[in-house]
């Protein structure tokens, strides 16, 4: 379980890092989204990896068997804020393209 998740995080991180180093704004935005998945999963994973132990309190549930709710609370807001920053970045890149006429991250094409 841990192994699969760790490999997945690694692959998403690698893909994300590769993309944010690319010159086109769209590549960077996809890269940031992939990176945020990886980071969210990583933070979530810090709380321990358990199945069928959602932090919901019921009658007769042993509290100590439940998974750690703190990373989950952190990640939950991170997901929503991640959407907001993606939106902001998208609009900035659209506006930048409108102003500069290019979708290069520097606002102008690199001299060949």
């Amino acid at each position, binding site marked *: *379980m841990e192994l699969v*998740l760790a490999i*997945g995080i690694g692959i998403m991180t690698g893909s994300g890092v*590769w993309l944010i180093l690319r010159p086109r704004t769209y590549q960077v935005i*996809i890269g940031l989204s992939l990176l945020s998945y990886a980071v969210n999963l990583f933070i979530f994973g810090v709380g321990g990896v358990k*199945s069928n132990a959602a932090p*919901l309190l019921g009658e007769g549930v042993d509290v100590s068997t439940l998974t750690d709710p703190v990373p989950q609370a952190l990640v939950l807001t991170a997901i929503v804020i991640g959407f907001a920053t993606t939106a902001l970045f998208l609009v900035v890149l659209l506006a930048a393209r409108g102003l500069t006429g290019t979708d290069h991250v520097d606002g102008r094409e690199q001299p060949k």
Partner: protein
Amino acid sequence: MILVLLVCLPFVGSLAAVVLLRTDSRVLAARMAGAVTFVALVLTAVLYPSVRDGGKVRLDLEWLPQLGLNVTLRMDGFAWLFAMLVTGIGFLVVLYARYYMSEEDPVPRFFSFLLAFMGSMLGIVLSGNIILLSVFWELTSIFSFLLISYWHNNAAARDGARMALTITGIGGFCLLAGLLVLGHIVGSYDLDVVLASGDLIKAHPLYLTALVLILIGALTKSAQVPFHFWLPNAMAAPTPVSAYLHSATMVKAGVFLLVRFWPALSGTYEWFMLVGIAGISTLILGAYFAMFQQDLKGLLAYSTISHLGLITTLLSLGSPLAAVAAIFHMMNHATFKASLFMAAGIIDHETGTRDMRRLSGLLKYLPITGTLAMVASAAMAGVPLLNGFISKEMFFAEAVETHADSVLDRILPYVATLAGAFSVAYSLRFIHMVFFGPPPTDLPKPKPHEPPHWMRFPIEFLVLACLVVGIIPSLSIGPFLHSAVISVLGDRTPEYSLAIWHGINTPLIMSLIALVGGAALYVVMKDYLAKCDNGPPLFRHLGGQRIFERVLVTVSWKWARWLESNLGTRHLQPQLRLVAAAGFLAGAVSLYLAGFSPKPLAFKDVDPIFAAVWAIGAFCALGAAYQAKYHRLAALVLLGGAGITTCITFVWLSAPDLAITQLVVEIVTTVLLLLGLRWLPKRSEKVDNSVSFSARSRRFRDFLLAISCGFGMFLFSYAIMTQPVPDAIASYFLDKAYSEGGGRNVVNVILVDFRGFDTMGEIAVLAIVALTVFALLRRFRPAPDSIEKPEQQRIQNAFDAERPERSAGDTVRDYLLVPSVIMQWMFPVIATFAVYLFLRGHDLPGGGFAAGITMAIAFLLQYLAGGVRWAEDRLRILPLRWMGFGLIMAAATGMGAWLLGYPFLTTHSQYIEVPFIGKVPAASALLFDLGVFSLVVGATVLILIALAHQSVRMHRVRGLDAPKAEEN
């Protein structure tokens, strides 16, 4: 209590003057300022009985007692005398400025700054805590900057203000550091404690550090060599400012500080050498430079520097008698110098120039002002029967005494006499060149005349004070001076006499030599001085000012440019590369240093289905990375795949809340990016596939970096996840969620209850982002090649046009007709689902965030189904109202706790019996969550609709470009 009032009143007056800024009248602001200063003066005066004979008034307000920082105000005899000086001269300056300032200037602003400065100065004087003192010290620098640059259209005023701020600001910084060291030595920041531990301080190894830092602060403020050059440049300020700040009060703050800390710091060899060298060189150089100034105010400025040097020299000697003389001379100098500045202001005001080469014979036109200026100049020169004479005699007497036997001490009598002669020469020059001689010929204002009586009154008053103190010193200033001296020197107060006549002794002979020598010097140099350039010979081109500017240009321009061009880049990619590499190295190095070794990989408990899901996820992530350049839609779909994998992982690993949120956010993100795709340029693999060698190597480097980061994250997260989870704060939340938060869904309880304040911050961020997006899109101009309708629409319209039975736009309208009807019907279903998610959130997976986005999706589907126009004809969403309601709701719920006497955002929970439904949990956190819900709906909808609207808006880029094209 009076002390607080005394410090606060000027600041209150300053704010009130800002309100008056709208009125045109200079009189109203001046009257208000006059009233404030007069009240401050009276308040100070009535405190005298309590500070007489070593008494003290003290007030302690706790501020940060843990750090030893308190608002302590204290007034002793010395502080009282200084406060009288600040408020008294302040009042006279306000009166003078009432007539000096012209109608065109924004007069209320002037008085506002002036009052604020007065408050800061009183703060320095009355601070009983050395950190508080430093705060007020900085404030005086800032208000001095604002006052010097009052005529901000004038370049000289701006430069002078900047220079003054830079020098005194650096000094203030050093002072703060020095005071912190001092506080560290003593163990307290309380002034009384510091003053009482002089022996401890002087014996401490850090004494020299503290001394040097404090001295830099004091010497910069008091314009001592080598920091003196800012003061002449500050003369670009209006004359009342020069009279008040740059002769009477602010520049005295430095010597005030030296006197204040005199009991604690003085008397050592280091003190004598450092303070002495600065004081003596300032004394002589200031007087020498003053002789060669052609600007009236320049002459007075250098004379001020020289007199401040005299005070510093006296303080360096470390003898109690010298300290008495220093305090006395501070008062005397303030009286005659302020009156001279005001006289110079009147001359400038009446004639239009301050250049002594153009002024002459003004006594005929300005008989009263001229006479007053002559008396004040005589006081400056140290002529008997005036106050300047007495303190100068005391200085000469101290100069002759041997204090610390050294070269410095032995040359002091000669230097003092020479400086005295110089000051006689420049005083004489001031009077002779301005008031005597032939009538002036080329004045900018030809017919000068006496100013209004009340403008002259401050000078009359101060000159009268010079005379009274000069003739009957022990009856006039005597008792007040005595209180001041006792408060500084305590039981070391020496026997001293303020008499005018001490018999024929060495100081008197030195005075005579100075008077005669100075007069002779002026007679010899008169003709040269009448024509020479501004500034003394030899030094004319070697000013501290030039060095200062050189240094400033070198540091802030040349070095900064060099650093930027050699170390900086304006390209994003290298920056991100650095960030990624630094992140990788920071992780790798610290893990290596901590002795990290990778764990053996455990394959045995791998669930095959989970592995299969992640195989798809990994494929999607890699595919998105591969396709993002040329196949954006494909990359977006693959990104969605990676998102769904994440979502499934959350479900699998016991995080249902995250899964729900991830799922709905995934939907809106996809829609968002889809909306953006339309405005991006076409990019085709066939067209720009020329790959150079350097591009290839760059890619290879990035590829390696990406692989390293990915592999590092893999090892790191595997290591963390296979560690046993330590017993941290999780159990606390799990235990208390139900008993104190009243909810069974612990994640939701954390969000809306335990960490409610964080959540509030987060929704505020969301609101800010949404508004920013909205604002950016209001001025959105797409690139020219994206303005036309998209290719698909054009094909469809062409198809319509070809057929007679169809009209243009039909295909677009009919596109996906059946699904769109279903989507329209889905609205109530999804909205109900959102409410359901919201209501169950406290006990079961759901909550405000997920429900809010779901609700936003319900709205969004209507846009998708019918198009923007169709949706808006039928639905008015008003996202800004949703957002506003959400923020107010969340904040009001938090504040509701105040009413019941609990801290912000304390929640209350109980169950209510609702008919047919049963027990319903009703925590106040539900209301907070309602705020979150509403805000999330508003923000999401605002972002998406603003973006969707761009396709409908008429873009005027082409319209604007068309006339340009015609011109070409």
